[in-house]
């Protein structure tokens, strides 16, 4: 059973040829980053060529889904209809990703308790049968730093 945090009315992502493998992994609750097969440099979001060596060859590396909050903001005004406010947006430094960050929502945490450096882990929100979106919540066992 997947937990739900955002309404069905949120605009749904539209995968492109470049990002389809990322969304297919997400549907299996696997968080992946794209990796250049020429120079091993990782990148996110998925893109056709490597920013380091400009090679077009790549594969996908699974990461743990753990990380920490690099910075964050609390949004008090909606971007789409039917959103609950406020909501949290965070830039998360992903563990084991080769120095990548992802921008996502923080869920299951009071805005007052979020701080830079907070350890977080991925939680998959199943928006529909074949669409899962990664959100992040504080790591349960640890106290926020």
């Amino acid at each position: 059973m997947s937990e739900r945090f955002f309404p069905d009315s949120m605009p749904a992502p539209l995968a492109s040829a470049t990002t389809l493998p990322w969304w297919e992994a997400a549907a299996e609750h696997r968080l992946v980053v794209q990796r250049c097969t020429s120079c091993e440099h990782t990148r996110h979001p998925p893109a056709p060529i490597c920013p380091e060596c400009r090679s077009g060859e790549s594969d996908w590396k699974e990461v743990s889904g753990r990380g920490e909050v690099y910075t964050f903001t609390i949004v008090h005004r909606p971007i789409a209809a039917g959103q609950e406010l406020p909501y949290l947006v965070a830039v998360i430094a992903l563990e084991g990703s080769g120095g990548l960050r992802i921008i996502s929502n923080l869920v299951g945490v009071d805005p007052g308790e979020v701080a830079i450096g907070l350890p977080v882990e991925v939680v998959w929100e199943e928006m529909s049968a074949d669409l899962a979106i990664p959100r992040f919540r504080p790591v349960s066992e640890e106290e926020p730093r």
Partner: protein
Amino acid sequence: MASNGIKDRVAIVGMGCTPFGERWDKSGEDLLVDAAKDVYASANVEPDAVDAYWLGTMGSGTSGLMLSEALKLPYKPVTRLENMCATGSEAMRNAAYAVASGAYDLVMAIGVEKLKDSGYSGLVTSRPPDDGTSASMTAPAMFSLLAPAYAKKYGVDEGELKEVISRIAWKNHCNGAKNPKAQFRKEVPMERIQNSPRVAGMFGIFDCSGVSDGSAAAILCRAEDAHKYTDSPIFIKALSFAAGPAEGAYSQDYDFTTFQEVVASAQDAYGQAGVANPREEISMAEVHDCFTATELVLMEDLGFSARGEGWKDVLGGRFDGDGAQPVNPDGGLKSFGHPIGASGLRMMYEMWLQLRGEAGERQIAEPKLGLTHNLGGQPGRCVSFVSIVGK
């Protein structure tokens, strides 16, 4: 970054600008007609004298027809272009290169945006729903990420930083109060700014620029022809543009206290103009204060303040209308308003007035070099324009 520049080869010989604001009485085409009439009169030319046109609009129209139809131009070359919030500056940059090349003798750059009849508050975009692997965020949310990062890096207490950004809004409202064409012509007390309803992160309503309708325009020619049109032309010393690889927000190398694109375009512009010390040599600037924290970071990226020192210069009044280096003397995006395609040309309009001694109550004493800075995008993923102009 390599560029040869066109220092002192191109002159601006006329400028026009409509009042910015909620112009329910005007369509985009009406605003273009008003700005064009103003700029033709300013340059003392008939419409037929202008050889080619560059129209900047982010989303209020498509193709050169928007302008040729509004102005009833007789089969002239009209290019419509878009480069996010730097669209107006990009129109001027391309028009300047066209006369510098010799392809045309007299050209117009004109920008317009009609945001208020879109049925939507804020920016409209023609993009499809985001792919979702990159973030889809509100503009205030994206730029609000700058504030806590800056506070932490330089050891500024968040309460103190709130005062710094509020003072930027206060300053830009003081300047806009003296500007008859500005959208918001009222001084606002610091306390009201600091306590305004929150929008995102540390930002309240008063940390955000105005959503507006408006148009602005320039007529340009080669420097040697300038005095045919006006006794006091202004000359382009530098034009620079940088589009980044958009790695910033997703790379652990980036710390949200700078725009690398701004640093690159500023350094290129200073090289073209021969400016060694911008803090001392740039008399005044119009910068892209889409949000208050953006203006703070820009002071450091443009080299007006040392890294980590910009907040002290803000509190010390260095960038006030009567300060050592006035920034946004016309009220900026905050108070003059931000009709996207027009904003870059509106910035240049203030440089035009200031350098010619026509800025009235806002006049800066003996300005030598003026800088405009126009930004499109968000921290870590943006385009940046810098110009330097002088007499």
